[in-house]
């Protein structure tokens, strides 16, 4: 996993209180990791904070899995 992927994983584990081994690229925040709609909003905020970038709402709507987040942030992360 990339360095960005590791940081994404750490945030997901912390915010959703899930086992690290469940946080794989294909894992859906809502279907596999028990997040609700408010959790996903907060996750996106945490990504913005960690990676120093803004994630617009239309982009946030396409981030459904751990892999989606990593892919987006590999392109857009500023820190």
């Amino acid at each position, binding site marked *: 996993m990339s360095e960005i992927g590791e940081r994404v994983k750490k945030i997901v584990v*912390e915010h959703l209180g899930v086992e690290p081994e469940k946080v794989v690229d294909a894992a859906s925040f809502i279907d596999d990791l028990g997040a609700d709609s*408010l959790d996903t*909003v*907060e996750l996106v*905020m945490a990504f913005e*904070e960690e990676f120093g970038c803004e994630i617009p709402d239309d982009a946030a709507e396409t981030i459904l899995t751990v892999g989606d987040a990593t892919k987006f942030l590999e392109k857009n992360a500023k820190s």
Partner: protein
Amino acid sequence: MRRVVVTGLGMVSPLGCGVEPTWKRILDGQSGARRIESFDVSDLQTKIGCTVVRGDGTNDTFNPDIWMEPKDQRKVDDFIIFGMAAAGQALDDANWHPETEEDKCATGTMIGSGIGGLNGIAETAVLLKERGPRRVSPFFIPGRLINLASGYVSIKHGLKGPNHSVVTACSTGAHAVGDAARLIALGDADVMVAGGAESPIGRIGIAGFNAARALSTAFNETPEKASRPYDKDRDGFVMGEGAGVLVLEELEHAKRRGAKIYAEVIGYGLSGDAYHITSPSPDGDGGFRSMAAALKRAGLTASDLDYINAHGTSTPLGDEIELGAVERLLGNAASKVAMSSTKSSTGHLLGAAGAIEAIFAILAIRDNVVPPTINLDNPSVETAIDLVPHQAKKREVNVALSNSFGFGGTNASVIFRRLVH
């Protein structure tokens, strides 16, 4: 109307996590007041509080992880975590864990708070100012709302009956117990998980109550002496935090399942002062009418009372006004009644006070003992009522009344009696 009994108790207090550890320390005459260490108090007039001691759960410390998952704790203010803990304890104590749809729908929640998520609101206001609206969490609102203590408890335990909440400042806990008992009496629920939770200790809460001249400021170096109801040196209340929750149950429902019954809720009275936003009416008429209404509802006279758990916050004005109202209520019976303020030990838990004090009144009945008013060295007025200074006393207690009075001139009195068949 249907009869209502108490079948479960739960508590998080400055004297420990749990009903029995708290009660034992109260009877031992201990104080939960201490210097505040968790935030900067250097510029605050009051530097002490009755804080809940956090820890791993040993030595009666409060371990939030037992009651709420860490990922959920982050989303809420402490009053919700305290409420979850007290409710979990109370349901365990009552051995009531509804499984069927019918039982779930017959069980409701009514856990209130005086102020709710004050610290979270303050922190988020700063965040909004410094970093803008995009940093405000989606959990900001649901983690601060007062009725979310009831909400979280309802969700965790699958309670689908009335999901309600009381907000009447320092009368909240007493109103919650009384109103929840009425819902059962009227048939809206068979079981209610009722009480109050509060987490007001923070810079903004202390600054606000200091500005209102409500808190003790003269005992920062000897915190355990600061809460001293009826004593001539009292100078304000000591802020406390925590939660108290009772499981109330319809009598026949409790009997059918063989539940342990602590006491019956036999009286409940409410009144308004219509006088001032923070000061009690000097003639004590509001408190008097609330007690009188509770007695009427109970079908008792004042001479039937054995013990009164006073509101008694240790403020210069309030204590004597309440005492005057109680003397008026008791008349010639004054010398046979004991009245103490357990706030001398716990501090003032605001919206949770009425709930933990209802529990102390019930335990006085259970154990035939009255808890002490500690620090009462020199009473500021003479009275025939036994204010139980310093030491707990063994005495027969069959009927106990608990008073709570709040900002806004809101008064509530609840009466419990040992169950008679």
